[in-house]
């Protein structure tokens, strides 16, 4: 456990002692801020309309849920930037030799790197708490829905990060790693678009595979074990394959 934390700490430190963390977190905050502002205006307008018709708009369904969904879109672009260097950079600079010849197991190294990336990711989405706090101080959203939304965001990010780690462990080149990760994320996101045009079996498989489809329920305040199982399986499968990939690399030399 100490070894895992040592690696995670090192990863976090290297994110924050290079411009990476600041650029990633900064632009995420900027984009999310813009979405927040835009949706707030729209929501206010709708809300005024509804008020005229005698009912109020639901802040959870009509503001917070779209915000979470939009955050998940930004993640698609931002997370490859976090994971693309994790292994690639160590392989390129030769520091992987230090890790692999130290008394550490592959699993410890991988979990350390995963936790490090998760740490940066958590710091990134923590910024959106400011926006949520604003909503809570001026309106009265339901806090449970916000909490499940954050749980969903963390789990979905964890899946993306584990897949990103896997891809990064396959190449020395950061650009290759980043682009491949982005392509895979995007595909996982839109894979169910063609679902309705296929047969019933393929349809349910495609729907099941879509990472973002599983996220939807979280934004409605639903914690379904089906989705938890899905996210945790993708995460562990990604990390498992990363371990295999690192081991294979070792045999190939």
């Amino acid at each position, binding site marked *: 456990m100490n*070894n895992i934390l*040592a690696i995670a700490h090192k990863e976090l430190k*290297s994110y924050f*002692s*290079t411009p990476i963390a600041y650029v990633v977190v900064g632009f995420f905050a900027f984009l999310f801020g813009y979405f927040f502002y835009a949706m707030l205006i729209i929501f206010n307008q709708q809300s005024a309309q509804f008020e005229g018709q005698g009912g109020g708009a639901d802040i959870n369904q009509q503001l917070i849920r779209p915000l979470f969904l939009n955050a998940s879109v930004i993640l698609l672009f931002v997370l490859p930037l976090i994971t693309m260097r994790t292994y690639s950079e160590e392989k390129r*600079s*030769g520091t992987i030799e230090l890790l692999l010849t*130290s008394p*550490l*197991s592959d699993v410890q190294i991988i979990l350390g790197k995963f936790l490090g990336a998760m740490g940066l990711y958590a710091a990134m989405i923590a910024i959106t708490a400011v926006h949520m706090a604003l909503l809570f101080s001026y309106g009265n959203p339901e806090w449970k829905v916000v909490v499940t939304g954050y749980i969903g965001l963390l789990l979905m990010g964890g899946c993306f990060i584990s897949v990103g780690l896997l891809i990064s462990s396959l190449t020395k080149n950061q650009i290759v790693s980043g682009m491949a990760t982005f392509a895979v994320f995007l595909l996982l996101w839109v894979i169910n678009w063609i679902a309705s045009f296929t047969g019933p079996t393929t349809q349910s498989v495609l729907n099941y595979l879509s990472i973002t489809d599983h996220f939807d329920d979280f934004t409605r305040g639903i914690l379904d074990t089906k989705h938890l199982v899905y996210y945790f399986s993708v995460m562990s499968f990604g990390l498992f394959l990363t371990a295999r990939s690192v081991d294979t690399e070792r045999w190939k030399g």
Partner: protein
Amino acid sequence: MIEVQHLTKRYGPVTAVDDVSFTVERGEILGFLGPNGAGKTTTMRVLTGYMPPTGGKAIVAGYDVLEQPLEAKRRTGYLPETPPLYPEMTVREYLTFVSKIKGVPRGERKARVDEMMRKTHVDDMANRHCGKLSKGYRQRVGLAQALMHNPDVLILDEPTAGLDPKQIIETRQLIRGLAGDHTIILSTHILPEVSQTCQRVVIINRGKVVAVDTPDNLTSRLRGSETMYLQVDAAGADAESILQRVSGVTRVSVADTKQQVIGYEVDSEAGRDVRRELAAAVVSRGWGLLEMRPMRMSLEEIFLHVTTEEAPAQAAAPAEVAHE
């Protein structure tokens, strides 16, 4: 302390290390010598557990590197060819990280990091980023990293590569000072390094061990004849044949000519001292004897000798390329 038995490593169809066996005793410094691409780094990477062997066995500090890798790694320090530094960390941060992953107990870490920085003379750079260090400092921080957990076995891949002469001398002294407490394997393709630092030498060429011995034994074993260098001023035209006639001399050749001064290389039968006769032959004819010294077969020549023995097959290939 280190036992390598029939070690083989293949990369696809390429055999990088072919049935290599040797042992290193506790406290010994073993030089690992060979041209670039001979398989030195690959052997070292197997010994450090960085990669598994295709065949054979490597036992380091009593643990098989394949069966019990963590135990073996706990007792091994490794300095790869490029020191594995994180450019964005300061020297102190880096060494502290190393102390953590090498299993130095929490309470001892700070003292240990300070000690290693003093030992490798990098303490004045403690707060400098690793990426901004000069080559010499990088190498020394790399060495500090390898020594961090006080390992029984130290494996150093070209520890003096890229250093300036003063740093090379310092590094060699440091390495010699480590022997006794640590068992050391160091690889190099610089020969004087071996004769100055190592007690025993393994010469490896194209994946195979071609010689294992002490530097002195290697020198004498391969020296079949004695060679003398003579520098003569204003020698007559028949000088070469006159020298040739001195009893015990087997061969005379002109090594260099500077106007009137001619340098000769004189081979003689092994174990026979022909210096007096040579001097008399020159002086009695009124020529000036400017210099006379024995030429020993240097490690350089031994190295070339043992690594080019299979030369014919090897030499044919580049020749063909030249025709194209």
